């Protein structure tokens, strides 16, 4: 197949560029800085052609090149022990990292941002966010098996929040549901800091056999380069370099046309088609087309390969025949893939395309010249060393410094503040406080969102939201499966970025362990403001340092992720929001632990100790306070707690487990009760005495490394012995009460489950219909 019509443009060839060194080029409009343009001229030994300029501008953008964060991100690769590497089959740098699951199975997962597009056009922005991350997973040779979506919106009562929320949720559902991928969890946070810059992150996970792992490289001289999937159109042109790297303010024209439009049906067909290609071993290398489109795919494939590549750009199938070479190179049209195929596999490749009615065009071939050459009707318009485009972009050592305001923020503790006046203490006040907490925007039921997502498709979902982690079966014979959780706390990270990032990891780690899975790998999506602001750059540097240190201490490597910068409105950045995803392994998903208790009379234990840690808490948030220091991080305790939860699940010592995080013990008790509508009787006097805290603190503190579990009577001795042997604090705080229909806590007025449920579930419908 070739395009029927090729239109003649004023083609700026390499030859022409060499002869006209003084031609003015719009490098500034394409987002390049003077020093970057000078560097391109130096690399090429002449001025770039228009097409080359387009390629460099998108590939050297912050979004594609990580130029501001690269120097810091190195730590994820450096702070790794041999032990941490042993299950890592593919590390950072590929489309997604791959982890060994055993029995010949491998798993790949990655989290990515689609923040700016989701603010401009929430439906398409969120939809194509799912589409993009899913293609990253397919590119590794895996079958995608689930998605998750951490979301952060502006204030729940702001008029614009409904626009973004409705669009983003419908987009994630509309795209993900149509792909046949269960949505197994995510996050939902409302905070006015995200008003003009919501965070729409998306995670996808896929599985494969070891021998099916595919990498993005073009090797083998004479092998053919093919582009397949949707046709190339004008969508998203300049999106990568312009949209993702500029903050929103009112002075610039609308960027609406720069947002890509998704076609989930095309993507679903592409998934099945790629899996059939993998099954027949019909591709040598494969790369999805995301940000920077063909520029990225050709330069990365060629750069990762052992030779060069030559492609004819007029062979690209177009949706819009008026596109110029530069636009074709920059287009971010969705649902496209590029592959390298040996000549003997061409016929078999074409048969698969025809079966699935997927369009394709052969663009060129792999060479041994070490150059990426792109021609237009035979005339050379790009002649570059692909490494200079894809990998050797600019790297900045941006200045950073601890903000002047950090000390005063940390000195402003919630305890004793104006906002802390009238802290609840009477039984009726505490009952009202618990109800207020679980009905609050961040702690209320997410049902309104999750019921718009298909969690069943595939038939392998063993657990999904609202349990602590999503669990998917991988092997139907053995029950082998994976658990996933994502977490972040922008408020903690604002108070202390090093610790905040570690707290995000600790919570995700705890969530995975709570489900019974052994944590194995990390993917992170670092959402921050402008790196040109030294305050923000310090937050980023500290968060990366904190996260990499904590990964080392917990013994789980970062296998991939994404950095999203310039998340700010005018000069006001969002709270630093490192979203951390942890993946764990379950030998048999039948052993997973759900978060709700069910059986009458089971003992409820609180694991871990409680300190007066209310700074940055949800309770302080409800009172409009943000200051002080976040809860202490104790990674050794997190690890010990994790081991207890994993062993308890494996040996059938617990029937339910729920981690304590935002909202503390109060939120956990209500959530475990509402999960199956089974209440409990709780007494915290012993805890208060042991830890030296009052009842309010026991309920609302957000001390880390804690979880509640329900233990069958027959297992109680064994469970206690295990905790004692490991020296981990454990305390029997109550008993499951199946008959009462209420949550009774000594010193707190009785809470009926019906009333709690009504408060918990009414919030989102009230604001969003």
């Amino acid at each position: 197949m070739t395009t029927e019509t090729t239109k003649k443009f004023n083609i700026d060839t390499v030859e022409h560029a060499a002869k006209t060194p003084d031609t003015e080029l719009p490098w500034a409009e394409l987002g390049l800085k003077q020093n970057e343009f000078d560097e391109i001229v130096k690399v090429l030994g002449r001025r770039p052609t228009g097409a080359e300029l387009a390629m460099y501008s998108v590939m050297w953008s912050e979004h594609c090149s990580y130029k501001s964060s690269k120097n810091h991100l190195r730590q994820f690769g450096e702070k790794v022990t041999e032990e941490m590497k042993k299950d890592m089959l593919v590390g950072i740098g590929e489309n997604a990292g791959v982890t060994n699951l055993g029995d010949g199975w491998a798993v790949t997962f990655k989290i990515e941002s689609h923040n700016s597009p989701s603010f401009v056009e929430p439906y398409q922005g969120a939809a194509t966010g799912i589409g993009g991350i899913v293609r990253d997973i397919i590119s590794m040779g895996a079958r995608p098996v689930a998605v998750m979506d951490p979301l952060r919106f502006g204030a729940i009562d702001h008029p614009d929040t409904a626009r973004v929320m409705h669009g983003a949720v419908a987009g994630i559902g509309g795209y993900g549901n149509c792909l046949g991928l269960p949505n197994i969890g995510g996050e939902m946070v409302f905070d006015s800091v995200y008003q003009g810059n919501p965070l729409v992150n998306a995670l996808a996970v896929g599985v494969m056999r070891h021998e099916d792992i595919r990498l993005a490289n073009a090797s083998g001289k004479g092998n053919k380069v093919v582009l397949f999937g949707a046709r190339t159109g004008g969508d998203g042109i300049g999106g990568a370099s312009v949209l993702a790297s500029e903050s929103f303010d009112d002075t610039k024209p609308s960027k609406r046309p720069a947002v890509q439009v998704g076609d989930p049906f095309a993507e679903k067909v592409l998934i099945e088609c790629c899996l059939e290609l993998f099954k027949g071993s019909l591709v040598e290398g494969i790369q999805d087309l995301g940000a920077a489109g063909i520029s990225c795919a050709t330069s990365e494939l060629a750069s990762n390969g052992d030779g060069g590549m030559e492609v004819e750009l007029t062979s690209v199938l177009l949706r819009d025949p008026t596109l110029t070479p530069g636009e074709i190179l920059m287009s971010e049209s969705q649902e496209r893939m590029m592959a390298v195929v040996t000549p003997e596999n061409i016929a078999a490749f074409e048969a698969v395309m025809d079966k699935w009615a997927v369009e394709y065009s052969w663009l060129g071939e792999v060479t041994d010249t070490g150059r990426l050459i792109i021609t237009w009707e035979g005339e050379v318009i790009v002649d570059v060393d692909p490494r200079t485009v894809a990998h050797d972009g600019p790297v900045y050592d941006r200045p950073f410094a601890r903000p002047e305001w950090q000390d005063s923020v940390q000195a402003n503790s919630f305890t004793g503040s104006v906002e802390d006046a009238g802290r609840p203490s009477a039984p009726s006040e505490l009952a009202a406080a618990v109800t207020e907490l679980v009905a609050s925007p961040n702690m209320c039921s997410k049902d309104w969102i999750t019921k718009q997502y298909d969690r069943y498709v595939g038939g392998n979902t063993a657990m999904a939201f609202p349990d602590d982690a999503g669990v998917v079966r991988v092997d139907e014979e053995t029950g082998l499966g994976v658990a996933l959780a994502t977490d972040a706390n922008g408020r903690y990270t604002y108070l202390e970025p090093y610790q905040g990032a570690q707290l995000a990891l600790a919570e995700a780690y705890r969530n995975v362990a709570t489900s019974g899975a052994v944590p194995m790998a990390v993917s992170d999506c670092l959402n921050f403001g402008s790196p040109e602001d030294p305050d923000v750059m310090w937050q980023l540097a500290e968060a990366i340092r904190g996260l990499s240190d904590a990964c080392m201490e917990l013994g789980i490597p970062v296998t991939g992720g994404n950095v999203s910068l310039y998340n700010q409105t005018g000069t006001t950045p969002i709270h630093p929001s490192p979203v951390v995803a942890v993946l764990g392994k379950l030998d048999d998903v039948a052993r997973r632990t759900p978060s709700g208790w069910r059986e009458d009379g089971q003992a409820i234990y609180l694991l871990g100790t409680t300190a007066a840690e209310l700074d940055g808490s949800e309770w302080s948030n409800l009172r409009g306070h943000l200051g002080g220091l976040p809860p202490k991080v104790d990674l050794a305790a997190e690890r010990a707690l994790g081991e207890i939860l994993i062993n308890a699940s494996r040996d059938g010592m617990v029937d339910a487990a729920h981690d304590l995080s935002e909202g503390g013990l109060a939120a956990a008790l209500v959530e475990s009760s509402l999960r199956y509508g089974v209440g409990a009787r709780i007494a915290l006097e012993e805890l208060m005495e042991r830890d030296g805290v009052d009842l309010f603190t026991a309920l609302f503190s957000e001390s880390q490394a804690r979880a509640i579990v329900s233990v069958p009577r027959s297992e109680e001795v064994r469970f206690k012995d295990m905790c004692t042997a490991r020296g981990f604090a454990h305390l029997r705080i109550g008993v499951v009460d199946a008959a009462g229909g209420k949550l009774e806590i000594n010193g707190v007025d009785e809470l009926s489950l019906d009333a709690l449920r009504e408060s918990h579930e009414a919030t989102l419908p009230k604001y969003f219909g």
Partner: protein
Amino acid sequence: MTSIPLIGEAVAVAAEPRLAGAKIGVVTFPGTLDDRDAARAVRLAGGTAVSLWHADTELGDVDAVIIPGGFSYGDYLRAGAISRFAPLMSKIIDAANSEAKLPVLGICNGFQILTESHLLPGSMIKNDHLKFICRDQTLRVENANTAWTVDYTDGQEIIVPLKNQDGQYIADEKTLDALEAEGRVVFRYVGFNPNGSRRDIAGISNAAGNVVGLMPHPEHAVETGFGPESLDGAPRDTDGLGFFTSVLTKIVGGDK
């Protein structure tokens, strides 16, 4: 190459030799999502699942056919409107209407394809609340005499997942009256009508009872640990298995 099938691929292993002889075709269109789930359900019920491709021109020797859920052709036109013209569909229509009365089950998008094919009356429009909805849905079996419901009892309540965007069943009053009078309303929503369907109808059959279509997904309620749970946490995760054992019972002729 891998010797173990890719995850989710239909694996045909059957427990009971008698039932294993029964072959149930599962049709895949471009955009079909729940084909692997339907094949798994057949296998768990004891039968043998056979993959059928929409472009095939022969049905082969299958004893029954399931048209699974999904978004065939993206539902970009009316749901099911394009799939209805697939070469295999004309074979299925002929076989369903033939003397042999091939049992056909349409689930969700499959139900939409069956109404578009005129094997079943009425049509589905967008949910009354205009959003996609996924929930564990209680259904009442109104007719336990169809090819796909003989293993249930009249009036039995079951819980199976429901997930759709265009699930509101509509038909004119005369058609609805006729369906009720002839006992062709096979399933009704209980407690909550999730999409505004007329008379709470969740599923119907043709006059002979060999063709059944419904919006909810029995194939997602066939395996312990992977299906719905009742509100109090009691497992209800295999309530959907009866669809698949019913048709196997029917095929092998009564007793198992």
